[in-house]
């Protein structure tokens, strides 16, 4: 009557293993052969566009390396694409045709719109935006992209600071320079953080650097770039710093040298809110604005709490508890009491 426990456990483990493998390999969500080909063609187009955009010439070897594809596979794809009149092959170099450029811009548009969507409307962590957009760019039609564009309030830039191409293919040239090439003593603002390669992007995220952050470059040589921002001194290797693009502050902007993060406010100190970092987006940002975290409001510490976080702050006669990662995104200027 009672089943053999050993056999029962064995069958159970096999079932668990099968379910795990099924989820891991997404058996029910496989792309068809035609879909895979389309995705590969689109990846090649995008890579070609980026190479041409940075005024370089695309060669077969460099492309195969960048796309992590075998030469023979790439040759096959390029022949297929030349047949579709998306590219021209001239000697050693590969060029996009006009229709190829349009196609590439369409893919880039979807990619950046999707990243914008993920940043504004979902809680997906920013380290995952790029990978998810890489999947999505092959799936959305132009009409769906337009609908997304409208529902997001016609954004012009993605969350990394890259311009989103218009439906017509219109796009601006970015005039930013890499952080690694800025002279010491200059005041700059981060306009773009490159999300590829991922290793470096993750490193930048871990440093809690973000778009629109103002910095003062302290020193800059072949190996290291040092700068001051939000009351913290940073030191980045040149490789990492060259993936951050910056612009010098214009006349209307002034360097908020006194600005520090709310998380540095100590018991008994008073401060004025300078602003909420751009990194705080969507619902989170609206919520903080609703609670009164507006430029000029005075704020002081309230309660420390029994654990490391949250901490409560007194603002507009109310105690508001914030977690540390939120307090990192609110900039304040301390008032001498």
């Amino acid at each position, binding site marked *: 009557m009672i089943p053999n426990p050993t056999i029962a456990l064995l069958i159970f483990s096999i079932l668990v293993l099968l379910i795990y493998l099924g989820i891991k390999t997404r058996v029910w969500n496989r792309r068809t052969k035609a879909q895979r080909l389309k995705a590969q063609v689109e990846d090649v187009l995008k890579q070609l566009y980026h190479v041409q955009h940075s005024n370089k010439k695309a060669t077969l070897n460099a492309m195969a390396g960048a796309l992590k594809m075998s030469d023979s596979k790439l040759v096959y794809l390029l022949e297929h694409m030349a047949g579709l009149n998306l590219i021209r092959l001239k000697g050693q170099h590969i060029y996009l045709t006009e229709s190829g450029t349009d196609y590439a811009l369409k893919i880039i548009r979807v990619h950046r719109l999707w990243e914008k969507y993920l940043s504004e409307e979902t*809680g997906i962590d920013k380290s995952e935006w790029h990978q998810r957009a890489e999947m999505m760019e092959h799936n959305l039609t132009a009409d769906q992209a337009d609908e997304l564009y409208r529902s997001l309030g016609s954004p012009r830039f993605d969350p990394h600071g890259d311009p989103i191409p218009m439906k017509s293919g219109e796009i601006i040239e970015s005039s930013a320079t890499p952080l690694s090439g800025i002279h010491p003593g200059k005041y700059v603002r981060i306009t773009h953080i490159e999300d590829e390669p991922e290793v470096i992007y993750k490193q930048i995220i871990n440093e809690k650097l973000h778009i629109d952050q103002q910095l003062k470059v302290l020193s800059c040589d072949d190996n290291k770039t040092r700068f001051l921002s939000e009351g913290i001194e940073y030191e980045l290797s040149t490789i990492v710093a060259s993936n951050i693009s910056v612009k010098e502050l214009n006349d209307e902007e002034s360097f908020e040298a006194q600005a520090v993060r709310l998380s540095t406010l100590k018991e008994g100190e008073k401060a004025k809110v300078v602003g909420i970092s751009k990194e705080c987006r969507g619902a989170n940002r609206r919520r903080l604005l609703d609670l009164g975290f507006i430029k000029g409001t005075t704020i002081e510490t309230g309660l420390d709490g*029994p654990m490391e976080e949250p901490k409560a702050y007194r603002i507009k006669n109310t105690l508001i*508890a914030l*977690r540390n990662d939120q307090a990192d995104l609110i900039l304040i200027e301390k008032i001498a009491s």
Partner: protein
Amino acid sequence: MSDQNNQIDDIISFASSLRWKVGDDFHDKLTEAIYSDAAVITSRVETKGDDEKSYHFDRLLDRILTSRRFGFLIMALILSVILWLTIQGANYPSSMLNTLLLELIYPTLKSVSASIGLPWWLDGFLFDGVYMAVAWVIAVMLPPMAIFFPLFTLLEDFGYLPRVAFNLDGLFKKSGAHGKQALTMSMGWGCNAAGVVATRIIDSPRERLIAIITNNFSLCNGRWPTQILIATIFIGALVPSGLSGTISTLAVIAIAFLGIVFMFLTSWLLSRTMLKGEVSTFTLELPPYRPPRFWKTIYTSLIDRTIIVLWRAIIFAAPAGAVIWLISNIDIGSTSVASHAIEFLDPFGILIGLNGVILLAYVVAIPANEIVIPTVLMLTVAHFNITGFGAGDGVMFELDSVSETENILKTGGWTLLTGINLMLFSLLHNPCSTTIFTIYKETKSWKWTSVATILPVVFGVVVCFLIAQCWRLLF
């Protein structure tokens, strides 16, 4: 005309080129400017009262209630007192209601129906089925809720509960949840449906869904009696009689703690997988303390929480009573539907260390956890033809004597393993239909309702299965 059109095109393309330059955040800047202007205007006309004294009192109280040393201690103390008041205090009104509904009104109804000559099936269906289930649910459910919820609401009104959320948020953050989930979880110890409604206080979509889905892991008031009874019969019996009370109490507390463990585990799992894409915003306002408005609080908590939940429970209990009576009284061949179902479920039940009776009881008693044990007893007596107990097929009953209950269950083939697994399954199974319906009302999503319903059963079956196999390998 074409000249004008050209001009318009020029303006549009000029505007478009400007939009690239104005940057992405001009909406934000505009909003922030409006907010700041509004703040300046209000500060000019705003007059403030002098609240120095109450402000300092608040600060002092806050420092004690959220201090590293006393914060958690005070919290545990208050919660224990509330639970103790609820469990102890509910005994008297519960037994009074029980006497009134089951020992006075029920026989009266039966004799009235006999005197006007109702056919036996209508009499059985209405009084043994529908009335019995409803009366049972009211008697067991109403008193604890009528004590627990007003006490809870008083604390809320005083301003203490946000401080609890504040104290515990660091802990809950680690599992991807909101500190306020501590409150909805405690509310779930009273009633899961009320706990689900209470998640409205969590304004972040992701954390609210987590709180809703995991609320079922709070052992609700309909399940405490089951736990206590089974622990007394099977676990208390393992130790000398002097210790049995303490040991069985500890066993029940252990199960409640296991529920908390599962709550954290599931929260962690959900926030990293299924709910990763939901928006998450944390804010917690700590309002000033104020003397609770006693009568208003009692009134609103009775109306808002107790009565509404009770009403839903009754609506769901009535058909369940009917079903329980019907499956026991309709025969296919020579045996009742219930017996067929028990025989069908038995192999799987035995596999996971339970039995067919328990599984059938959990299926038909979906409307209310309160009627699981009465249903189990009735089904066992009917299925194993035990004579001398109960009031006939399809009539739920409970026994005052624990040892008689034990005899019935052991005749039904129960062992220590069955007892332990029933305690686990009672913690880890689908929410009652009242709660499922409430989850749907709160989330408006079939997807999340099904997740909240199915996930705990899967946990329950897997845990019971593993325990049963290990048990059989070891003993």
